[in-house]
């Protein structure tokens, strides 16, 4: 998988992971992938809600050692 942009939102609280995701998406092109890592447990549901609201696609999601990783495709 060709990740165009990696965003580290570790340690950041709501709503910063979502705001970082928004800023990141503005820098890549449609079809390109962005990976974002967060430690805020609320971001699991929030990232899905953000993706569904903006139309960007959440293509992969996993968690390990208290880190939540999301891969999103620019719409």
């Amino acid at each position, binding site marked *: 998988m060709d990740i165009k942009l990696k965003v580290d939102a570790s340690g950041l609280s709501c*709503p910063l992971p979502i705001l970082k995701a928004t800023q990141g998406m503005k820098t890549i092109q449609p079809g390109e992938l962005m990976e974002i890592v967060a430690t805020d447990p609320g971001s699991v549901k929030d990232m899905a809600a953000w993706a569904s609201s903006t139309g960007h696609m959440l293509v992969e999601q996993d968690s390990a050692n208290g880190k939540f990783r999301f891969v999103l495709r620019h719409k």
Partner: protein
Amino acid sequence: MTAEVASKRKSICIIAYSGELEPTWASMIIASTAAAMDMEVSIFVTFWGFGALVKDSKRLPGKNLMQRMLSVMQRPGISHRKLSKMNFMGMGPWMMFQLAKKYNVSKPKDLLGMCQELGVKIYPCQMTMDLFGLNKEDLIDGLEDPVGAATMLQLATEADSTLFI
């Protein structure tokens, strides 16, 4: 989903009435997140909400003694909001900001900047500006032109959701 439905952006209208730190913070979190979620966001700022719209550097806005006394009693500016409970002469907000720093929570001022960056429309209430003796120069940059209750009602009834904070 049809193309027509997909192209219609959701919208939210926030009436920012309160001036204390917590409601100001809540408004800023909701507005910036809504904008990040690609919603159209409008904030109508009225009465004590103006505490967050006056520039931090403005110490005593107002055109007459009574208006200036209001500014003495509660210092305007988004960085100078008081807690509604446990303010303790500023100790409460100071502790709140220390906690925010520790837990990486954005301050209202940073969220306001984010709102403006993401195109949130902020409408000052003309009547409150007259009442408090505020000029456009007293307020932060990037605001919409001042409006009245009719515009606020139009924004609120056309929005998918309206919050009075």
